[in-house]
């Protein structure tokens, strides 16, 4: 919750340090960090699961007359050596060291993703599934807690839905972002329009898609909702989408962390840990509202 209300208090009249105000509610902070942990583990255990069949297809099955659209393998190079090869559509790339063939404890191993990005680090599908489903449930429960809170506190309507003036400022906001400029003063008390749209997309599009494409891979749930797996293009398409959306979330996290770093890392971190965010004095910012 972003609320520069009664809790905003001037720290001191003599130092121009600005204001600390209650930016993030406790529930938002808890769900934020448990999501961060869950997503990291889900990605890494998910890549271990991917390694059991390092190939992505489109459609209902893996064995049709169409070739996979993404595949990693250990292949024999022209000079007779072994390389890691990654094929995307009809293009093959040498990805030795990362995809298809990588080092694990000094040894070269034929595997999809390398050991430093998978849980467990060595091939162990059964264990990866235990990690994956435990943290998938954590993510689902977390999401339910967050959405229930948001509903009762009007968090989404108040803090995330862009206002009319947000939409008008979208061009300037894009320019600000590419110049790495960030709002200061009172404007920093609210999320900017790109931030709002990104969070909305993550909360209401990407994360639900992860869960729904995950469900489409469950044979039991497919029997309850046969239309759903067809809607996403079949079970192998669901697996492919699950993979693509996962990496879209990784892209979001990279940009998110980058923005946190360049827009006042300690202030941002403090606000997501203690809830308190400092509004630095800027032009016309003596009044927090």
């Amino acid at each position, binding site marked *: 919750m972003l609320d520069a209300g009664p809790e905003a208090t001037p720290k001191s009249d003599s130092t121009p340090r600005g204001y600390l105000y209650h930016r993030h509610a406790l529930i938002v902070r808890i769900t934020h960090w448990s999501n961060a942990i869950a997503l990291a*583990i889900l990605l*890494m255990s998910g890549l271990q*699961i*991917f390694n*059991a*069949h390092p*190939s992505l297809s489109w459609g*209902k*099955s*893996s*064995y*049709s*007359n169409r070739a996979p659209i993404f595949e990693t393998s250990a292949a024999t190079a022209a000079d007779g050596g072994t390389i890691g090869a990654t094929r995307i559509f009809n293009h093959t790339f040498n990805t030795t060291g990362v995809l298809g063939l990588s080092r694990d404890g000094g040894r070269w191993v034929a595997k999809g993703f390398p*050991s*430093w990005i998978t*849980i*467990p*680090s*060595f091939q*162990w*599908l*059964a*264990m990866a*599934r*235990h*990690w994956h*489903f*435990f*943290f*998938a*449930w954590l993510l689902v429960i977390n999401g339910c807690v967050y959405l229930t809170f948001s509903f009762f506190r009007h968090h989404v309507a108040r803090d995330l839905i862009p206002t009319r003036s947000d939409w008008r400022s979208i061009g300037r906001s894009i320019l600000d972002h590419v110049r790495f400029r960030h709002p200061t003063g009172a404007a920093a008390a609210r999320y900017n329009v790109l931030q709002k749209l990104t969070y909305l997309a993550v909360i209401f599009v990407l994360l639900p898609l992860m869960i729904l494409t995950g469900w489409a*891979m*469950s*044979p*039991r*749930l*497919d*029997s*309850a909702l*046969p239309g759903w*797996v067809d809607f996403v293009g079949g*079970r*192998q398409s669901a*697996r492919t989408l699950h993979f693509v959306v996962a990496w879209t979330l990784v892209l979001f996290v990279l940009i998110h962390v980058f923005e946190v770093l360049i827009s006042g890392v300690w202030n941002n971190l403090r606000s997501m840990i203690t809830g308190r965010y400092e509004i630095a004095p800027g032009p016309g910012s003596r009044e927090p509202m």
Partner: protein
Amino acid sequence: MIANNDSPRRLRRNLLTAMGGLLLGGCDALSRSEWFPKILRAGEVLSRRVQHAVTPRRSMAQEFTERDLSPTFRSNGTANPDDATYQAFAQAAFSDWQLQVDGLVEQPLGFSLEQLRAMRSRVQITRHDCVEGWSAIGKWKGVPLADVLTLVRPTSMARYVVFHCADPMDHAGTKYYESIDMEDAYHPQTILAYELNDASLPIANGAPLRVRIERQLGYKMAKYIMRVQLVDSYAGIGRGGGGYWEDRGYEWYAGI
């Protein structure tokens, strides 16, 4: 502190690598521990309970058309059981093979392949989902397990159906086995299949008989079935996990 002349950037990178290594090593240590996987398995319990709560008992797995058939149905796991008894049956085209059905039943019975073929059959084109992630679509013909159970009359004590198979999985001769509950056993799509894609079930796919359990993953669908046993608990079979792969860490409930 580390005494070296590295640049701060190098130090930072080494620190990050070390932290990453610690985290990954931590996850590996947790995976190998006795207690942590037990906590993780709460996920399996939750999946089983919730999936059973939201899916009707008789919900049907999707059935496909001939156009969707995979060109060849992939053989996975054992492709040809390394077992003298089995090979002798195979030599005789399974003419003297018999399916033994016993355990907690009122009338233990043996069924020849001819007898099974003479019973009411069901044909279904379904998707086979392997725990590894791949799917294949095949056309199966077989006798509903429910019909076989009706003939042997399970007692009220029977809670699970155990499939004992002919294929040895290791040098010690550990045979494959699997188990399902009575809900799946009586499901209309649970069949003992003797045909794949309009031909006799190939040895690579489990001849003479394999079970289809269409709402679970492939490893539940035992091949090379020799004996069906009704039990009240599978704790005393194998290592007690309810199946060969379950004994090696995979979930007994494979609906996800």
